[in-house]
């Protein structure tokens, strides 16, 4: 509770900017976690079956691009608020 009051005072009463900045940080965390999990499964798959390495790599890159798209929606909308 006190932390919120301190934050409110620091931003000069402009909760909107603070919210947008927090939103961008959360989007970055989410993208990192999601794409990290993709990378983990891809590396596990390649370790189990090295012949399928190039198929797995293509799938990993496509999935990473799609999930990064979602994270970038959040960044674009927060950018408009900022």
């Amino acid at each position: 509770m006190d932390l919120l009051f301190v934050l409110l005072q620091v931003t000069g009463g402009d909760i909107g900017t603070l919210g947008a900045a927090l939103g961008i940080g959360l989007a970055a965390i989410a993208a990192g976690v999601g794409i990290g999990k993709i990378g983990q499964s891809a590396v596990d798959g390649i370790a189990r079956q090295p012949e399928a390495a190039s198929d797995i790599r293509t799938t990993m890159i496509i999935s990473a691009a799609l999930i990064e798209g979602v994270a970038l929606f959040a960044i674009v909308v927060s950018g408009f608020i900022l």
Partner: protein
Amino acid sequence: MRQKIEKYGLLVLMMLFYASISVTAQENSPMQEELNVKELILDHLSDSYDWQIVNNGQWDITLPLPVILYSKTSGWHFFLSDRVSHGSSFNGFRISAESSYKGKIVETATSGVVSRPLDLSMTRNACSLLLSSFVLILMVLGVARVMKRKPMEGQGGFVGMMELFIQMICDDVIKPAVGKDYQRYTPFLLTIFFFIFINNLLGLVPFFPGGANTTGNIAVTLVLAVTTFLVVNLTGTKAYFREIFWPDVPLWLKVPLPIMPAIEFVSLFTKPFALMIRLFANIMAGHAIVLGLTTIIFMTVSLGSTINTSMTAVSVIFMIFIYFVELLVAFIQAYVFTLLSAVFIGLARVRNREENKNNGPEAIHINK
């Protein structure tokens, strides 16, 4: 190892020495204006009525581009944009600095009302789109002519590379995703791929013919997404629309409140919307990162020469790394756009369930 330190250590020291000399020379110059990073980056990312080729302290080479306006009161106007550059006004038109029409040409009528005329100018993005379309047409028609002359020989060089690209997109993206009548859609999908790829690459080039942020402009990606939307929906089969408006789900989801049809109808629009935002945000974010890293050099000028030199070295190394990432992103975004468009077209060509086994996307076998 010790020989390497001796060999390269001197080189690194020399580079830092030269860098520090140039920095101190700049600090003694009298012109030190306030550096507004956000404005600088937004200026580079957004569209403008002239094309800046060189703009350092000494030279200012700017290419003025044609401005084509139609105002309701005074008809058509054609002039070059240097008449309205730097805040000057011409025939009642000027580039507005207010935040509602920032950077665009507005007309001040005699009554004092400020409004936007119909603006069909050749702005920087429009010229860059024309240039990249010209490059694309030259490339593709040239390759097609060479391949038509000698259809059975393997080609080397540029033609061979284009053949590899086209074959990869056709076999890995279009055929599996679209299904049976993929031949009808290959021109559209290949055009989309090469158009986005070439525009992304030209946006990364820092000097004159490139460097205009076309695919990072939401209007351009909006048009691409609308084109995909039209192709998907205008060639959709009856079974596709039936599955949207009367899907094969339990009756209570459809009748009193059409929940499932509403969701499916909204998804018709969110899929191209996602395509648009994905391409726009990826390319714009990449350009913004590169520009931000560049301005680090100028922001640390006032903090002293050691910090400036080290931040310059750090910034240049990061920028090179981000440039490689941006090259990869340029290809991946074009690939993902094409892949998703092909998937949507394939989903729209669905026939009845019984026929699907023989005609759907699973019907194409590719011999690897």
